[in-house]
């Protein structure tokens, strides 16, 4: 199965980035174990633009679609046999990036 590990940023409680090599080491491990699909860190939510074409012509709006103290800071897409494996990975991911991590299965992968 494919799981999305979402890194949750928190404006009130910014991450401690004192161990910058930890994420690289975790990424290398994912690749070695054949679990890596894709991953990336995002820039500040204020850099976001929201597009809405539901009315026909696209409308562009500055800023994230929802303002909140917690925001999407980055993500991993990994393969894991089941939720226990994905949860074990997310525990190490949270330790590596020093943020909360949400685990969600993909309903389908193109």
């Amino acid at each position, binding site marked *: *199965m494919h799981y999305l590990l979402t890194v949750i940023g928190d404006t009130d409680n910014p991450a401690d980035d004192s161990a910058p090599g930890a994420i690289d080491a975790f990424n290398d491990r994912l690749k070695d174990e054949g679990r890596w699909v894709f991953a990336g860190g995002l820039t500040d939510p204020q850099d976001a633009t929201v597009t809405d074409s539901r009315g026909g012509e696209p409308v562009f709006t500055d800023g994230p679609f929802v303002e909140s103290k917690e925001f999407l800071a980055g993500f991993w897409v990994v393969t894991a*046999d*089941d*939720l*226990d494996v*994905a*949860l074990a990975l997310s525990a190490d991911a949270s330790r590596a990036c020093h943020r909360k991590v949400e*685990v*969600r*299965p993909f309903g389908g992968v193109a």
Partner: protein
Amino acid sequence: MTDPAPGSDEALTRVHREEWARVVATLARRFGDLDIAEDAAAEAFATAVERWRTHGVPPNPGAWLTTTAANKALDRIRRESRRGTKQRQAHMLTDQLAGPPEPEGAVEDERLRLLFTCAHPALAPEARIALTLRLVGGLTVAEIAHAFLVQETTMAQRITRAKAKVKAAGIPWRVPSETDLPARVDGVLTVLYLVFNEGYLASSADADPVRAELTGEAIRLTRLVRELLPDDGEVAGLLALMLLTEARRSARVSAGGELVPLDQQDRGAWDQELVAEGHALVRERLASGRPPGRFQVLAAINAVHTDAADARDTDWSQVVALYDQLVRLDPSPVVTLNRAIAVAELDGPHVALAQVDTLSAHLAGYHAFHATRADLLRRLGRGAEAREAYDRAIGLAGNAAESAYLTRRRDQFGPAR
């Protein structure tokens, strides 16, 4: 003990209790779907009740139920695949069914897998309880809804959602790895302990103060876990704790519906058979020489209490020493509060009160904190403060028998000034 008459309600209930979890677990394994397993098991039991009332219970009811339930599940899958929805899945499942039958003995592991699935940490605590009672305990949705005082539709949704998450999120069907096992067993035991406590001290004023159907079910399921994990010390500890608590049940509420504290209970009314079984389990754990977990220490504390023929004979220094051990395992304010109650007996109420008062920041919303303070203040002759503390305890207490006890104690101080 004599066997109940074949075909009687008692015989049917016994088969239901003994076979339900096995049937659900076997089907869940075979079809990879808790929903199908639950529905098919329920249908098979309904068919069995009709047939066995007139024909009597067959010699191997478990096998009969499993076969019948598997056929019902296959019918459902074929029906759904005819509608074109789950064709591929049904095909796969039928292929699986054609494989060799499960070896004997593996079935025990299936029930264990079912328990670990139902108590999985990725599910909400209330969902774990509901799922365990439904799929392992075989209680109906209506019974579980009644036990937890929610609408039947709410409980049905909770169970449906939990089953859907198990499937969609890929919660695995297996006994956890050795490194995860202690934490996961603790998760299963916590679910059973919550069920027991809700039965032993119902949290709502609308419920009966003590509900033997819940304490009994919790003990039955803990016995099952012990059967499946006989070497786990915490499983033995929780079972001992439940038995030593359940032994006091009939002495715990007075004829007038008031909670009776431990030191005032009629100890002759305690169930000596349960006490003996609980003590034997505690001795077994002590003899193992392995460091105990929290349930074993709690069981040992209850063993000291139930060992005293009179409340005045209680070995309080032993109780405090065990609480010291418990604080090291679980340094929570509630454990410190309970330790202080024992300290009051050993070192006096003024020492205990000083310890209790340090907890006010954490426990101001907990009725037992105020009830403990009230009792200590009463013993120190500080009536006005005791009265105030009883008021706060009554305001927060949910259990009807406990409220009745606290109210009588408060009113001994006369009308409010």
